[in-house]
């Protein structure tokens, strides 16, 4: 069984087709990156899969649960870190983590254990009492991913997780994302080609709502005779344009 399977998944906004008959399969524990230029439909795919917007037609299955029929069940098995950091600004790091532990209905003991586990995994000890509004972008992103993991999801959606971060902060987040491989199925969208190359088991390239191709970074580079994913991406997207 695939962790994620979409069947002709489509989203239309009046005359615009944001996602066009997407057929995609992602294996359990796989880190799958969706690449595409602005407006390609990456975020729309994530929003449909996480139940934030309804598809116009088609269906998708998360761990066998249909997004149309079992939306409630899906909420218990997914985690989302949106493009924006989406954390409570006037709450401390610890309070943010406590809030989401409460949202998932954890007992006091479980909340305490989960916060300890995440603070170790994400090295949050020194900033636990800091208001999140005062944290740097890198720390906010780190907390955002930690929050997305509170519900112990089997599928994690990371929408542009390193957007706007400096090289060091990005590299630290890559280490964290890499550590999730195998345990959690991760769907990642990014504009950074080197990020996709460094992290992904497989990559899907989207353009104008359509999935052009999927494959491992090596397969895509071999297919286009390119030595980097960036070159492969440009070649695939441009070729489609001709």
């Amino acid at each position: 069984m695939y962790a994620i399977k979409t069947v002709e998944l489509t989203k239309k906004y009046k005359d615009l087709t944001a996602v066009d008959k997407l057929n995609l399969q992602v294996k359990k524990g796989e880190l799958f990156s969706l690449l595409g230029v602005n407006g390609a439909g990456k975020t729309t795919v994530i929003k449909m899969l996480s139940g934030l917007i309804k598809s116009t037609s088609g269906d998708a299955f998360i761990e066998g649960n249909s997004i149309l029929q079992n939306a409630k069940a899906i909420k218990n098995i997914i985690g989302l870190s949106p493009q924006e950091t989406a954390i409570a600004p006037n709450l401390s790091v610890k309070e943010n983590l406590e809030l989401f532990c409460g949202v998932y209905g954890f007992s006091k003991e479980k909340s305490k254990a989960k916060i300890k586990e995440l603070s170790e995994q994400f090295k949050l000890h020194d900033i636990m009492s800091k208001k999140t509004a005062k944290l740097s972008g890198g720390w906010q992103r780190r907390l955002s991913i930690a929050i997305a993991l509170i519900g112990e999801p089997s599928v994690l959606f990371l929408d542009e997780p390193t957007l706007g971060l400096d090289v060091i902060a990005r590299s630290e987040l890559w280490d964290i994302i890499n550590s999730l491989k195998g345990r959690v199925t991760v769907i990642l969208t990014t504009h950074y080609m080197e990020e996709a190359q460094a992290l992904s088991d497989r990559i899907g390239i989207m353009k104008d709502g359509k999935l052009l191709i999927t494959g491992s970074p090596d397969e895509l580079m071999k297919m286009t005779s390119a030595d980097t994913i960036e070159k492969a991406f440009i070649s695939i997207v441009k070729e489609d344009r001709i």
Partner: protein
Amino acid sequence: MKTFTFADRCSKEILRDPLTLIFGLGFPVILLLLLSAIQANIPVKLFEIERLTPGITVFGLSFMTLFSATLIAKDRESSFLQRLYTTPLRPIDFILGYILPIIPIATTQTVVCYLIGFLLGLTVTMNILYAILMIIPVSVFYISLGLLCGSIMNTKQVGGICGALLTNLSAFLSGVWFDLELVGNTFRKIANVLPFVHAVELERAVINGSFSEILPHLCVVLIYAIITTIGAILLFLRQMRK
């Protein structure tokens, strides 16, 4: 339990914003002191402490609309709500989570206003307790109005509509600053159709012990509180489904 977890977060977000203290408590208190000082020099029936305190108390509640609308608009803009929509929180948890924590803030504001009223010569009677109790449906109206506005407006619009327009409209149409008869019959009729003047007259009737006058004003306030709350819930659910 999840409702209270979310309500606790909303309460912290509002109380940690310095504007809450400035507008929520500071501004009504300053108005009471200022208008009482004017009254001491140029006595006007409208600004007698028995009429002024209930008026300012109700006027102060218009800031609850600003608080709730700002919080929801910010949560929408920062994608914080989107993230929460992917968790097991139910619509009722969101709605109660936004409304419930502001009721104690509104009640505290009312208590502070009446305490200042005592210092300025308001007679201490049991009626004050009833007046504090009667403030609850008025608060629900103002808070739900905020939920309604925050569900459809952005932070900037909320600042303009709820922060400037509503507070002024609420003041002008409530008969706190001037006798509605002075402006003319049409203005008085418009004011009487709206809940603001009824909220003030309700509080004044309770303070004065004119219990026979309470029911008609209470009915208008309750009708508006119910309609606004239903409207807010529907709009919130609509934007949630979007």
